[in-house]
């Protein structure tokens, strides 16, 4: 039943998307704009099909319908309902179902948002691109990555359930959907960029139209990455949140190019510059989401040889190549129209700072991409299995990060066109004091070392600049001063500062040790005392847990455990963390488990300011939300410190003045 319903849903979505792509593209080529109305029913059919397919799979998981191979591989009678429902995105084909659902959702919302402009050719081509991408993904689900492959379960089959690491924390329910909302969300601005290139309307109009879509996609991706780091910290037991592994890099790459775009687009809106660059960034961001999907879903991470064994890898790589070729071809074709009228008057200007910011983000992305694909290239060419460790990434990206922090302090106070030394010294006074205060406080609290001290000082500098802008804006406009791209952006900057400071402190002053403790014994480390109180065994349907009770200081009892999952027969440690704004005490119960002597091996990791990372992520999400709301009506060409104009004056000011 579920197989039939689900397959029917996929067929419906695929056929609707394919028909829409062909029909609408044909009508656009033939200049029959009235046919554009067909977009809406087609999009509705794609959405219905994807909801039906996704719903059928969820139903199959909840019913433990092991006649579907994907459910048999990832479901289990023993798995709790929450993790049974989230198991859908624990494998390739379920992830594709989620991708299709999110894409269909974006398509319908896009058509509703632009319902008055469906006959606009630019809009038409953008929708064709969206339908074409949908056709590709639903086509994958009909062919090599079919989610509804039948399976004949043997008698008494119970299923192993998802990977134990994927059923250990509720964050699994939100982290992957957030990432997909971000990944798939970048399809919208990409589609508009292609539409603008096809129609030749490469001015600033389409940028304004897609600004908020890009912002939301970026916000979701940011939230997804931060939640992923949090999941890693809470589940994996090494007290780390970022390991530069290929899956993390795959999500980070489009984030880097997307962040560059969010800054450079302001230069185009304001100064008419960087048209090619902005279109290229959007195309690169979308292409990198496909490359990320290829890296994480093709088997290439295991080995380039594993990649060639499956059929989805080459198809995804082919789609990636098609996206790149289409983008490059169209940009080349429209080269003349993409020439920008503006140019930089002085490097010491806001556009100068944004340009440097973009160069740095591009360099950052290049470093991560090179490190990620280098082992694949070496293995393909020389049949040598190599690994690029964190040293390469840290060594290359740390200086870039410092310069970006410095720019975060400078750019918000810089005016467009040109800044004088006098103006800069006046506007940077507060931020400079904030930097001095941050450095002094850190030194007084015992911080040592060049890199963390530099991070704290530059963090203070950047936070000072962001706060200055927020305070000035709220003084002028009250709480409305928190809204809009410029002011919301400053909240995002504050979030980034929190994360930078958290990264520097937790990475530089980490303390890590293991203690063999008998019941009642204590050990001290980094100003904390841990006392082992005893071990208990707790039975769950899906696992058996060995839970150690550990008293941390006088704060309370924490319970790190080792869980033996019955289905997979795998034991997985589950850390327990005492969190505070100052530091985290991270406890894990190590193997071997306490025997007759009752001695437990407890690993204790003390890391300062880890919670600042999560607060930073929250601030970034909040800032994104504030940036998406319209703030004070400000033209893209308003002066940086322009006073608020009354509505009447503003309207008068907007009357275009033509030069004859």
């Amino acid at each position, binding site marked *: 039943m579920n197989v039939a319903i689900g397959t029917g849903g996929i067929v419906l979505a695929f056929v609707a998307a394919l028909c829409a792509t062909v029909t609408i593209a044909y009508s656009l080529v033939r200049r029959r704009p009235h046919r554009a109305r067909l977009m809406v029913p087609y999009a509705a059919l794609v959405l219905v099909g994807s909801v039906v397919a996704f719903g059928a799979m969820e139903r199959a998981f909840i019913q433990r319908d092991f006649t579907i191979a994907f459910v048999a591989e990832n479901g289990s009678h023993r798995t709790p309902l929450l993790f049974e429902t989230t198991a859908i995105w624990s494998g390739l084909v379920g992830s594709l179902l989620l991708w299709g659902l999110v894409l269909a959702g974006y398509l319908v919302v896009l058509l509703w948002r*632009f319902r008055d402009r469906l006959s*606009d050719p*630019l*809009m038409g081509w953008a929708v064709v691109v969206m339908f074409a991408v949908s056709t590709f993904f639903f086509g994958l689900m009909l062919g090599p990555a079919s989610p509804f492959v039948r399976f004949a379960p043997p008698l008494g089959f119970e299923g192993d359930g998802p990977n134990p690491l994927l059923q250990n924390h509720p964050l699994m329910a939100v982290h992957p959907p957030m990432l997909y909302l971000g990944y798939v969300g970048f399809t919208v601005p990409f589609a508009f960029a292609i539409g603008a290139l096809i129609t*030749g*309307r490469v*001015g*600033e*109009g389409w940028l*304004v*139209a897609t600004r908020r879509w890009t912002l939301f996609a970026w916000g979701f991706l940011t939230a997804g990455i931060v939640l992923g780091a949090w999941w890693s910290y809470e589940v994996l037991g*090494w007290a780390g949140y970022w*390991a*530069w*592994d290929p899956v*993390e*890099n795959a999500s980070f790459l489009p984030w880097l190019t997307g962040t560059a775009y969010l800054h450079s687009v302001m230069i185009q809106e304001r100064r008419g510059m960087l048209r090619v660059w902005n279109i290229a960034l959007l195309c690169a961001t979308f292409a990198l989401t496909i490359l990320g999907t290829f890296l994480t879903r093709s088997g290439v*991470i295991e080995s380039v040889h594993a990649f060639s064994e499956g059929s989805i890898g080459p198809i995804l790589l082919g789609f990636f190549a098609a996206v790149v070729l289409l983008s490059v071809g169209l940009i080349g074709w429209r080269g*003349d*129209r993409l020439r920008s*009228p503006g140019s930089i*008057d*002085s490097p010491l200007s806001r556009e100068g700072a944004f340009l440097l910011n973009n160069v740095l983000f591009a*360099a950052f992305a*290049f*470093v991560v991409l090179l490190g*990620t694909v280098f*082992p*694949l290239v*070496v293995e393909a060419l020389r049949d*040598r299995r*190599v*690994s*690029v*460790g*964190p040293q*390469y990434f840290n*060594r*290359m990206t740390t200086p870039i990060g410092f310069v970006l922090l410095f720019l975060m302090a400078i750019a918000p106070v810089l005016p*467009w*066109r*040109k*800044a*004088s030394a*006098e*103006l800069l010294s006046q506007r940077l006074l507060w931020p400079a004091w904030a930097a001095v205060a941050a450095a002094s406080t850190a030194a007084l609290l015992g911080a040592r070392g060049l890199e963390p001290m530099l991070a704290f000082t530059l963090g203070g500098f950047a936070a000072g600049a962001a706060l200055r802008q927020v305070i000035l804006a709220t003084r002028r406009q009250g709480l409305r001063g928190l809204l809009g791209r410029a002011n919301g952006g400053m909240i995002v900057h504050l979030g980034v500062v929190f994360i930078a400071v958290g990264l520097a402190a937790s990475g530089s002053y980490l303390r*890590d*040790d*293991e203690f063999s403790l008998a019941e009642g014994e204590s050990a001290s480390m980094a100003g904390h005392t841990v006392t082992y109180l005893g071990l208990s065994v707790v039975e769950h349907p899906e696992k058996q847990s060995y839970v150690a009770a550990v008293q941390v200081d006088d704060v309370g009892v924490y319970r790190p455990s080792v869980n033996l999952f019955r289905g997979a027969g795998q034991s997985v440690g589950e850390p327990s963390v005492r969190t505070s704004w100052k530091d985290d005490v991270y406890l894990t119960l*190590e193997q071997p488990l306490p025997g007759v002597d009752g001695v437990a091996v407890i*690993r204790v990791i003390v890391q300062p300011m880890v919670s600042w990372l999560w607060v930073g992520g929250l601030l970034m999400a909040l800032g994104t939300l504030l940036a998406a709301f319209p703030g004070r009506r400000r033209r893209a*060409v308003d*002066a940086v*410190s*322009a*006073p608020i104009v009354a509505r009447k004056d503003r309207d008068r000011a907007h009357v275009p*003045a*033509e*030069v*004859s």
Partner: protein
Amino acid sequence: MTSQDPIPAGNSLEGDGRAKDAPTRLDPDELAGLLEERNFLARSLRDLDAELAAGDLSPADYGTLREDYVVRTAAVLRGIEGQQSLSRVRLAARPGGPWRVVVGAAVLLFAVGAGVLVARLAGTRTAGGTLTGDIRASTRQELAGCLELASAAMSAGSAAGASDGTAPLLEAVRCYSEVLTRSPGNPEALSYRGWLLVRTGSVALQAQAAADLDAAVAADPTYPDARAFRAIVLYRSGQLAAAGKDLEVLDTLDTPPIITRLLSQFGIRQAVAEASPTVTALTSTTRS
């Protein structure tokens, strides 16, 4: 353009990219570019006034920028009238500088640098290892790795002579130092770093070695390796009584055979016993 107008037609140049108010001998795209440049410069001149009024620009900068915009606007207007190409007009108004070459060279240098570094830092991928990145090993795992390095270094040192074996010894020292940054009082790391420093034979490092061994004993007085290493160091520096005290404690501990063999190699018990009857008596009592 308003917020209700998400896909505005833009200025007169958007849409089909043609303008109606200009001669048509020039390529339409070229002409459209010139007209767009003209409108952009005119808008910039207006914005300049607003920015001066808002205090974003100093009067001096305002003057310089305005002059530049006026020159460029004039060049564009002449270009429209004279049907010159956009690139020619731009070149006449603002000739390009050498910065393109500089930026190109910097990009190339960065790319080559990144390539060299990634090739240098790439290591062999073990079975089950990740393609990139790695999770931080626990102190126990790191100490096991350091011990492998230390054993290899000491074997190499014994085989090739002390002077040739210094580099691997120092590599192992670095490994233990790395552990000590995260676990400053770790007795194993302190003991072995101290012992490896002793084995380098460098006079300059002996004080650090002694300090490490003292710290190791202080951190865990029941750790036999630390006691044994310190006893050897004390013995070699002629402090036999102090060495005897460490041996005395060592005899009450569960000493691994490898440490016992090490003490035998140095003949330390015999030397201490000969030098101090008290110590001999004490150790004999303990043994019996």
